[in-house]
């Protein structure tokens, strides 16, 4: 039940629907009554991406077709998925291997510039023994777009994988990450921030499966929804039998800034080992009225005060981005999305 199967076969019944437990808040079958035609090839200029200037090499997909490829798997690499065709569908898949001992920063962007497209991206990522990957995913979709991004990540012993997803949602959008965690001193940081307004929807789903001794996972997702937007967080950490000394922490914290906005959150810890340290925290609330009054009393108009406090709220996720240039791009993106001057 995936969008990519539906795009390949044209079979709408392959779309996940609300009857699928893991998709119940991100119904695609109910939304897509037809599939738009496959996007045409684009010949012409491709506008610069959000991480322009930061990467040593780049791989670029436009309308689902690869137009530039780099086989670099160390250093700083940009991976761009650009949608330039309105009312069209596009599917892309890409594989990435970080060799043992190597270190890679992946600056991934999903750049919607075409209205009502349907996009599906599947990534297969392997991080070798002692290797490290920091993946920063900036998803800037159009309000009418449907986009599903799925990454399968397999880690070798001693590998380090850090991820930060930043999204402003779409008509319907799912960013899913599945991590096979071998334990064995491998480390995972899995972060996200969603900022949703109007009728936008974003679903951040993750599954981390610890299969061996001594693994660490630290997960922090923060979000803000306003207007009639809807945020979905599904975080599952599985600690298999024998994966003792696993240390896993999951946090999801969100702000709801309007009566009609909605957040659906499902944090899950499934633990089949005995000696583990696991915790999760999930909070959803409004901005503190007292703090808002304090800011207004100092002369800051309400909308600016809300933006400032939301930037600060999400800031904790941004601070955890290790690559300095990407961190600055992320901070600027947050400020721009929230209309904050700071």
């Amino acid at each position, binding site marked *: 039940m995936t969008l990519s199967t539906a795009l390949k076969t044209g079979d709408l019944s392959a779309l996940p629907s609300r009857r699928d437990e893991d998709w119940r808040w991100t119904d695609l079958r109910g939304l897509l009554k037809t599939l738009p035609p496959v996007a045409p090839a684009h010949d012409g200029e491709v506008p610069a991406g959000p991480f322009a200037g930061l990467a040593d090499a780049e791989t670029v997909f436009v309308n689902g077709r690869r137009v530039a490829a780099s086989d670099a798997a160390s250093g700083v690499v940009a991976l761009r998925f650009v949608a330039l065709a309105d009312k069209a569908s596009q599917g892309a898949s890409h594989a990435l291997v970080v060799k043992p001992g190597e270190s890679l920063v992946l600056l991934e962007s999903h750049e919607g510039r075409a209205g009502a497209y349907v996009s599906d991206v599947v990534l297969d990522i392997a991080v070798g023994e002692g290797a490290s990957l920091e993946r920063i995913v900036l998803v800037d979709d159009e309000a009418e777009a449907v986009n599903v991004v799925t990454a399968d990540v397999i880690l070798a012993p001693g590998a380090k994988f850090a991820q930060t997803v930043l999204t402003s949602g779409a008509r319907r959008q799912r960013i899913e990450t599945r991590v096979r965690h071998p334990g064995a001193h491998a480390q995972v940081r899995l972060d996200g921030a969603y900022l949703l307004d109007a009728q936008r929807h974003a679903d951040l789903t993750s599954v981390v499966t610890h299969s061996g001794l001594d693994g660490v996972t630290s997960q922090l997702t923060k979000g803000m929804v306003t207007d009639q937007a809807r945020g979905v967080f599904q975080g599952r950490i599985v600690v298999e039998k024998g994966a003792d000394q696993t240390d896993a922490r999951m946090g999801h914290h969100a702000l709801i800034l309007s009566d009609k906005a909605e957040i659906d959150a499902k944090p899950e810890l499934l633990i089949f080992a005995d000696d583990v340290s696991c915790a999760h925290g999930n909070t959803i609330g409004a901005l503190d009225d007292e703090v808002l009054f*304090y800011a207004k*009393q*100092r002369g800051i108009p309400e909308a600016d005060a809300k933006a400032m406090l939301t930037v600060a709220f999400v*800031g904790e996720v941004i601070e955890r981005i290790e690559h300095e240039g990407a961190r600055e791009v992320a901070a600027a993106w947050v400020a721009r999305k929230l209309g904050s001057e700071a």
Partner: protein
Amino acid sequence: MLSIKNLHARVEDKPILKGVTLDVPAGEVHAIMGPNGAGKSTLSYVLTGRDGYEVTEGSATLNGEDVLSLEPNERAAKGLFLSFQYPLEIPGVPALTFIRTALNAQRRARGEDEIAAPAFLKLAKEKAAALKIDFEMLKRGLNVGFSGGEKKRMEIFQMSMLSPKFLILDETDSGLDIDALKIVSEGVNALRSPERGMLVITHYQRLLDHIKPDKVHVLAAGRIVASGGPELALQLEAEGYDRIVGAAA
């Protein structure tokens, strides 16, 4: 300067202020003293426009301009500043960012140019030094993890950066030890000027040893029941509220 006439206000359905009349001319410092529950904090919140405080009658003007119909931030831009009894903590917003945002918002509202970053930093360094505030503290989240005394000093710092026309100090002495009280009072006294008025709200007389008022008013059960010179504060301290409030009732 600040002119309050027959001000009535309620919180939910409960009347708290029942006809407060008060004039604080420019250049003067007036103290408002009163027992717990008299309406002292309500008066400060009504003047600054906090949600949930509803004015049912009367008026308040600053230099002849109505303030009660304005948003809290508009009142601030007109020059009204409230030093909070319990200043709020704002994680993730450095004090300097907060104050610069506030200062520039006020300046924009008044049709003035924004202050440039170098000029702002220079001003902040001077004012922080005068208040013995470690400049590094200003780069951390506003008031986060600060002691009561540090928070009050940060209020005075904001005051001196924003340079308001009229100050309301709500229980500024609460939670301060004697050294902090001296620093805070010196900071407030440095802001006394012929163009600026102040309303100092306090339960205890001791703050008024440091910030000498021109006039003292006693607020009880939502009304001013006695007014006088600084000696009134001493009399209250010696005799207690019951006697004066009782005599006026």
